[in-house]
């Protein structure tokens, strides 16, 4: 297949894969800036596993909710619980996240072993998400989440950045730090739950971490970091999907590889600039 033929095939045959992965890539890359800045990178990994657990729960015989609703519900409840623990000082953040991480994986395995509905391997495939087989329903759900999340962050950018930078002083000025922290985590939970169902946990976690770090290495202004991270989130899925089709690679790992190359280039540039 020629390059133009590949591009035509992707746009014509897999539009939801292309636009869906761009939506997820850009949004995760944007939210990831806060996650990296708040030093809760492991939260991304934890929430992807929690959302997968939520999906697994929907396979239980007595559950009548859809996969997306189940995943969303479990992730949001977990994140409200987590936002309390992450702002407390009794237990270290990483210990809390570590516990939730292993619990989510263990619980998922136990649930899947006992579900009579379908084969475990089929469920595992569904839980991992598949970029190439994004359904229109999932895509439009993700589009709604994208618009809502960007709108909330656009409206309250100064509140989110202030709380992230110096929650204590913000509280003395009357900002309810707990409210803004919880709102941020709930938005992150919704995005991660829907995105994980759609494109899989590796893609989601990768884009929560790789583009923000690359952007922080490349530019030195906060608003530009958000913009560059967002643009890497748009660019990497397009190039990654193209390369996956061209060389017959699996889509998700190829997209992550492209983002990783951008990160390595950013690190090299940053190192050269400092010499």
């Amino acid at each position, binding site marked *: 297949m020629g390059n133009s033929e590949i591009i035509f095939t992707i746009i014509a045959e897999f539009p939801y894969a292309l636009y869906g992965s761009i939506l997820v890539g850009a949004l995760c890359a944007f939210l990831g800036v806060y996650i990296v800045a*708040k030093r809760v990178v492991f939260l991304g990994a934890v929430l992807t596993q929690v959302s997968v657990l939520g999906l697994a729960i929907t396979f239980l015989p007595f559950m009548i909710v859809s996969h997306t609703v189940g995943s969303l519900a479990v992730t949001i409840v977990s994140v409200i619980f987590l936002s309390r623990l992450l702002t407390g000082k009794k237990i270290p953040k990483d210990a809390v996240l570590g516990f939730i991480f292993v619990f989510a994986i263990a619980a998922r395995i136990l649930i899947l072993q006992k579900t009579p509905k379908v084969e475990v391997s089929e469920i595992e495939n569904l839980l991992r998400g598949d970029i190439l087989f994004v359904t229109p329903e999932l895509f439009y759900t993700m589009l709604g989440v994208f618009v809502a999340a960007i709108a909330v962050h656009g*409206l309250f950018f*100064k509140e989110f950045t202030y709380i992230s930078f*110096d929650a204590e002083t913000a509280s*003395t000025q*009357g900002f309810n730090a707990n409210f803004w922290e919880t709102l941020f985590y709930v938005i992150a939970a919704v995005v991660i739950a829907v995105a994980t169902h759609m494109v899989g946990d590796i893609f989601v976690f990768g884009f929560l971490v790789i583009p923000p770090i690359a952007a922080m290495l490349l530019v*030195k202004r906060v608003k530009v970091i958000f913009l560059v991270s967002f643009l890497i989130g748009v660019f990497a899925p397009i190039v990654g999907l193209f390369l996956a089709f061209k060389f017959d690679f699996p889509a998700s790992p190829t997209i992550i590889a492209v983002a990783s190359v951008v990160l390595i280039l950013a690190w090299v540039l940053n190192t050269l600039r400092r010499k």
Partner: protein
Amino acid sequence: MTPLIEFHHATLGYGPKVVLQDVNFAINAGEYFGMVGPNGAGKTTLLRAILGTLKPLSGKVNIRNIADEPIRFGYVPQRDTIDYIMPYTVQEVVMMGRYRQIGIFHQPQPQDREIVLESLRHVDIENLRDRPFKDLSGGQKQRVLIARALATKPAVLILDEPTNGMDLSSRIAILELIHKLHEEDKLTVILVTHLLDDVANYVKRMAMVEWNFFQVGEVDEVLTEKNLSSLYQMPVQVAHVNGNKIILAGGRSGK
């Protein structure tokens, strides 16, 4: 003098844990008030009660309104409570002090930018406005945080351990700046520190804070050898050199 802040038999703490009991004192408008005590004595707890982020377990903390509006506090936190990953510029950090006045759903206006520049000029760091905050020295960072507090247009400036971890010249420069803000701008200032020398030569009235030991008064009444020796459980001397008080702790020479 009019009391701005009054503690009436206030017991302060967190849940079942009482940190300070039966606290009674007032801070007057226009005062330069110091709060000292060892680490963990309850200074930050007192501060939170003043700032309204901690309600007393019993008793009252009255904060007087000015012109029917709640007092606006300009708070300068300890520098280690701030996150340094993101490269906010000095100007962006000081603008955060305006966020409350700007209001939710609104963006900074030209008058907010002018107040930010005015605050930067006031602490002599206008030239640093485009520099990343995280790349500044300790003294420069402290000036930025003071400028941010000034940008709120406060009636009371509260500083929590502002000279912690600074070299001597930066420390004196910050103390002189705070003194200037008090003298020239007539700001009410509350300085919280564990460094006795910081309050000994700048503050007029102070509180010495420790569990079972809470004393308020003029610096000369509170910073006595007897009080300090009892508070720190070691011999402490208060010496005078060139009109300045110097606190000398025990140890090898103090015996």
